[in-house]
């Protein structure tokens, strides 16, 4: 459904006479097959939205090629637009308009008759739990309702491929969980291929078959969540022991674990296949007379994956603290001026 080769987007940013070229997207290859749900994960400013905007024909690639739903995004942009649904970060419904009106007009711009757009729109309102909000002004809808309305607009013409840009940013936990259900339904109920960007690890984990990780304009990994997690050196095993037994416990853990660390009464380390190794460890500890207060085993998170792949945690990458200050400035610029300039 999506095949991109060597996609590049450069922006020119400049204060005064100094113009610098920034490669927001720097050679992205991407393949998404029909029926897949793929999450495009990366910190703010990594190039997610810019890549997406090239795929949905809002931005012409500086270099590289992409076909979406079988059509070239540059030469056959009209066919691409007809085939895809796109829900941007901001959505597309005007605050001062009625929800139903916005949906119908949007459908009509896709060439639907008014009657078809009304019928389809009302169906989608029911499916996305927006019953009774047809004549509601958009600014009077809750964040979750507004987001579902945005999705209705993106689905009005029954696209087979749906792009969602940061679908749950800014929603409260309940609204978020609810929206996840609806996103999962896109494939389950209508067989759509879904490509969504997110900087939430749990979102990628919960929704996607496959995760594509982008950092600084380049793809750094593309695999299932489980496979990505196995790249991390094992599960995190955390033992809490009585104060005098910390060093004994650390010795025993070191026998099966890497990166063993001691913090107060806690001893932790990375263990491959912890499910198999931990029972033996517990027997060892028991035999050595160590009394355990608690044992916890954590599967690697996508944050661990990101750390392994890029040397920075996602949170650091977002804050720009992973590297010296100029990196922070670049990240801020990308957010403010560059992505803005692209619009």
């Amino acid at each position, binding site marked *: 459904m999506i095949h991109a080769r060597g996609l590049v987007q450069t922006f020119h940013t400049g204060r005064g006479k100094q113009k610098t070229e920034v490669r927001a997207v720097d050679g992205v290859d991407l393949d998404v097959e029909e029926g897949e749900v793929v999450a495009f994960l990366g910190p703010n400013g990594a190039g997610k939205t810019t890549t997406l905007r090239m795929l949905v024909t809002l931005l012409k*690639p500086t270099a590289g090629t992409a076909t979406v739903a079988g059509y070239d995004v*540059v030469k056959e942009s009209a066919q691409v637009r007809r085939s895809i649904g796109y829900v941007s970060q901001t959505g*597309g*419904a005007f605050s001062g308009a009625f929800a139903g009106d916005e949906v119908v007009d*949007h459908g*009509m*711009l896709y060439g639907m008759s008014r009657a078809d757009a009304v019928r389809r729109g009302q169906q989608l309102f029911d499916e996305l739990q927006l019953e009774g909000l047809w004549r509601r002004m958009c600014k009077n809808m809750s964040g979750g309702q507004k987001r579902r309305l945005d999705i209705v607009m993106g689905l009005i013409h029954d696209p087979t491929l749906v792009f969602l840009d940061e679908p749950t940013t800014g929603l409260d936990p309940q609204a978020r969980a609810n929206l996840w259900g609806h996103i999962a339904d896109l494939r389950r109920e209508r067989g759509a291929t879904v490509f969504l960007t997110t900087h939430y690890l749990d979102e990628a984990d919960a929704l996607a078959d496959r995760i594509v990780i982008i950092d600084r304009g380049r793809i750094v990994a593309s695999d299932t969540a489980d496979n990505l997690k196995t790249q991390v050196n094992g599960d995190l095993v955390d033992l809490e022991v009585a104060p005098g037994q910390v060093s004994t416990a650390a010795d025993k853990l070191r026998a099966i674990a890497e990166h063993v660390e001691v913090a107060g009464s806690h001893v932790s380390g990375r263990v491959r296949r912890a499910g198999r190794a931990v029972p033996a460890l517990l027997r060892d500890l028991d035999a050595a007379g160590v009394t355990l207060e608690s044992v916890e085993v954590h599967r690697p998170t996508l944050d661990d994956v990101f750390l392994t792949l890029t040397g920075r945690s996602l949170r650091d990458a977002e804050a720009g603290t992973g590297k010296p200050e100029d990196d922070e400035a670049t990240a801020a610029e990308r957010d403010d001026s560059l992505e803005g300039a*692209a619009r």
Partner: protein
Amino acid sequence: MNGFMRDSSIVFRRQIRMNLRNPAWVLIGVFQPVLYLLLFGPLLKPLVAQFPGGADNAYTFLVPGLLVQLGLFGAFFAGFSLIGEWREGVIEAERVTPASRGSLLVGRLMRDVLQLFVQSLILVLLGLAIGMRGSFDGIVLGIVITLVIGGACAAASNALGMATKSEDVMAPVINIVMMPVLLLSGILLPMTLGPDWLKRVSDFMPTRWITDAIRDVFAGDVANGTVLSGSLAALVFLALAAWWGVSTFQKDDA
């Protein structure tokens, strides 16, 4: 072309629906010219004998000027509403539909021109009510010229809004452009009252030709050189602004 008109009319209908929900804006737009008409018009009465051209009536002189002011200034604010829509993602959502990007502009221009038409009618009818005289044909032609220049300004304003996406840039640009244009177009007083150098400068303002043209047609002088050059100026403005607007809307187009 069929699809283009259909898309434009969908965009137009959407805009009009939102305008009708808040019709106060149409009145607010015409409020300033109406004040000029009612509070400044009487001041012109003793002066009107000194004015050149056919107008021997203060309101027949003033209303055409106010129409130009309405067309220039009123329409220039169209870009602000575009920025508001852009900020809420409306423009982008429209741009991922197969609808022609030109139609997204044209639909909005149709709204601006209709709004200007309603405002022009209010102004003219009010003028007639308080003593303006003019031939019917002339008034119709004058309003048409107003709509042409107003459409041009609306197109330019939408293009500027689309290009800058910032009210903070738009507002000073409009002020810098509009103030000299208004002052040098003879909208409130004829430029002939001024010293020679001022008159010479205003000779280079196409908007003064347009003001003069509307004045002449209101006074019943439909076919003269002034009317021709004013109408041509308005049409050239419209062509240039429409070209600018459409190319701005199509920018980044893949």
